Each structure stands twice: as C-alpha cells, then as structure tokens.
C-alpha cells in the first residue's frame, strides 16, 4: 500500500531565498510523525506546499498514492488539515462550522451529520456541538478544528504547530488526543518546535534551514539523552543562533 504521505526531493524558493532543499520523507498509516524544527526552518512553507497553497516546481508530493501535481483534488480529499492560525467562523456554532467544512468536501445530510457526530465524539466535543465557537476557549477551539479535519475520514492528518498559544493542560490534552488518533490508524504529521510533544516511539523529521537533518524514531535519535538536547545541538540553537 502507498504511504499516507510521501514527499520526494521537494525544493522551494521564494525568489532567490531557498526555503526548502531536497526534502524527502514519508509517513505511514498509524504513524505519528513529528516535523521538528526551529522557527524559520521551513515548516510553514512545507505545509503550504502540502495543502497546495503553494506549488513547487521541483519534487513530488504523494497523498495516499495521489500525486499533488497531477491529481490535486484527490490528494486534498485524502488529507485533513489543522492550520496554525485558526480558521473558524466565530459567529457560527460548532455544528455550523463542521457542516460548512463537510459541505466543502461534498458531504451533506445524514452522512455529514453522522460523520460530524463521530468526529466530535472522538475529540470529546459532542456536548459542545451547539455552542457558538466564540464562547469556546482556545483548547476547545483547537479540538473542534481537529475534529473537523477528521470528518471526511482522511488518510493523513496534517497539523501545523497546533498547540501554539494554548496553556499547558490543553496542550497536553491535544497532544494525547492526536497520538490516540494515530493509534487508531490515521497517519499524522505534526509540525512543532516543542520536543515535549513527542513520544519516544514517534517518528521524527528534523528540519533546519530548509533541509532534513534527521529522519528516524525519536527514541533512536535521542538515545540516552533528552531529545531537547539533541535537537538543540543539531540546529545550533544552543549557541544562540
């Protein structure tokens, strides 16, 4: 079977400034893969390419076997996305937001309703379905966005620094939720610069200045040392870079 996400030789530049250089890695079904990199490493550019807000001239992105360049719609349909910045309609209810998204993916009526309920249930948000999003706290808003990204049963879930701006408790809850989703079989690509969100059995792709420095299990990468130390050493952040 095709990997949920396969990135091969992806290179992207903003004019003369190279943001990504020959990025290659894959995420398998049921795998939680952390895309770890300091600010400015190219994570957001990579995300924009993955969701086709940008188009790369070099390299290939495959989502569940669909080539992003040749079959963008099939590729987009197979992915669920949680953007770094919230993409919510604050003046609509949770259900209203979910229905809007479902419709953008061609789902309506009973099918949409069932999938929405299941997704909210999965993120323990079912009882908030009728609340206005404006009334939700940051953690719940994020959980709603994750639930929303699951409505169309994607093969891979992409999350771009989903815990930014959340308190420690919400952060931990959301990290745990998404790890459980991976256990249930969804492939997860989780961009972050926070090592404490990564478990030893997670896959890690270390991205620094647009290049992949490492691609292995977190436990293997860190060895006996804390992952934070290894990460700082690799990216030079420890020397005040």
């Amino acid at each position, binding site marked *: 079977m095709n990997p949920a996400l396969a990135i091969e030789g992806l290179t992207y530049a903003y004019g003369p400034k190279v943001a990504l250089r020959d990025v290659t890695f894959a995420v398998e079904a049921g795998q939680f893969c952390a895309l770890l990199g300091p600010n400015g490493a190219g994570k957001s550019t990579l995300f924009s390419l993955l969701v086709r807000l940008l188009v790369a001239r070099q390299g290939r992105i495959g989502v569940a076997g669909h080539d992003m360049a040749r079959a963008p719609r099939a590729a*987009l349909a197979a992915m669920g996305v949680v953007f770094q910045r919230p993409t919510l309609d604050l003046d609509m209810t949770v259900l209203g937001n979910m229905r809007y998204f479902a419709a953008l993916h061609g789902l309506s009526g009973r099918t949409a309703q069932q999938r929405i309920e299941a997704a909210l249930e999965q993120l323990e948000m079912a009882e908030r379905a009728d609340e206005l999003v404006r009334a939700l706290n940051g953690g719940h808003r994020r959980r709603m966005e994750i639930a929303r990204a699951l409505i169309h049963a994607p093969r891979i879930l992409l999350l771009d620094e989903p815990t930014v701006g959340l308190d420690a408790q919400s952060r931990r809850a959301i990290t745990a939720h998404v790890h459980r989703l991976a256990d249930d079989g969804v492939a997860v690509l989780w961009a972050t610069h926070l090592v404490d969100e990564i478990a030893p059995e997670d896959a890690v792709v270390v991205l620094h200045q647009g290049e992949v420095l490492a691609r292995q299990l977190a436990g293997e990468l860190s060895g006996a040392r804390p992952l934070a130390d290894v990460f700082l050493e690799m990216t030079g952040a420890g020397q005040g870079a």
Partner: protein
Amino acid sequence: MSAYLVAFQAIARRELHRFVAQRGRFLSALVRPLVWLLIFAAGFRAALGVSIIPPYQTYITYEVYIVPGLCGMILLFNGMQSSLALVYDREMGAMRLLLTAPLPRWWLLFAKLAAGAGVGILQVYAFLAIAAVFGITLPALGYLLALPALALAGLMLGAMGLLISSTVRQLENFAGVMNFVIFPMFFLSSALYPLWKMAESSEWLRDISAVNPFTHAVELIRFSLYLTAAPSPALYTTLYAAGFFVLALAGYNPAIGLRREA
C-alpha cells in the same frame, strides 16, 4: 446531490448568514443610496434637466434618472465589501479552508462570487421597495426583468472585487481601494448624469466614462428596468465579468499567484 452543489449551497448559506448577522452593513447599504436619492437628487432636480433619451419615452425627473445608477452603486459597494471580506478571510485564515477544499478553485471562487452577487441583489430590491414607498416607481414588469441584469452586473462588479482581493495583500491597503476604485468608477459613469450631458463639459471625461465597466452595468440595469433590450451594455458587462474573473483566478492560482502567506 453532487459535491459541487453541496459546496455551492454551503458557501452561499455562509455568505447570507454573514450578511444577516451584520445588520449595520445592511443598514448602511440601504442608507447610502437613499441619501443620494432623497437628498442629493432632490437638490439636483432643478439644476439638471434630463431630456428624453432611450430607454425613457417621456420626460423624467432626476430622481427617476439616478435610480438605476444607485442600484449599480449598491452592487459596486457590495462587490468591494465582499472583496474586503476576502482579504480579511485570507488574513484570518478562513480562506485556506476554502482554497484547500477538494474542488476546482474556479468553482469555489465562483460560488463565493455568486453568493456575494445574490446578497447584493437582495439589497437592490430592498432599496427599490423603499424608493417605491417614496413614490419613485418603475414599470411593474421592469422589477422582474431587471433581475438578470442585476445578476450580471453583480457578478461583474464582484469579479472585479475578487481581482482586487487577489492583488491587495493587506487589509490596511483597502482604504486606497475606496478612493481609487469606487469613487472614480461611480462618478465617471452614467450613474449620475447621462453621458451626452457630460460631453457638454468635457469630451474627454465622456470617453473615459464610455469605457468604464460600471457605465455598462448601469446602462444594462437602466434599459432592463424599462423593458428595453440593451445588447451592447449586456455584451460589455459579460466581457468585463469574464475578464475580471479569469484574471482573479490567475491571482488565486498557487502556481502563478505565488502568494506568500506567513
């Protein structure tokens, strides 16, 4: 139901929901043309005589003359407002949800455009109803026959807004759009004065006004309201609509537009 229609409906519903939620926007959309109609036009009535020109078959008062132009003005402001909302959506991230949906981008943007035009048409009819209360009426059938014209004009002005939204990068730059798009378009058109009248003071301004897309939209609405065929304005409005939309699509194409989003 096909995925296309499901998405279209959801986008239209969201647009309508937004419009209903923003009562202030509706109010100002109505007050603006009413001020022109009931105050400005009343004052100008004595100063400006409008002779019999097609599609009118009799002498008309100035108030009657500017009604189609004010319908156009509502659609123009509405188009710009939708465009502003698009820039806002893009800054706030909501646009990403739309652009990453697994449907062709042209369809998603067209849905947005059509929904915006629909909201504009609702405002036009509300305005016409109030104008009728004040005794400014049109041929009864004209209200109905103007609908396709209003739709076409609304799509054209909305597509122009879409194009602007694809080039304006920040919300703050939007005030400039008001000054450089809305006002010249409105004043350099046949909305407030017939073009032959304008030619009396400047041939030059008349020529500019004659190619102004807004003039074609207003004339299309005017002729339709008076049950008169207007092939040339209809053709030009369609061409402008298609042109603006194609350019806007290029602006929103990830491979061409190269929009850098932080």
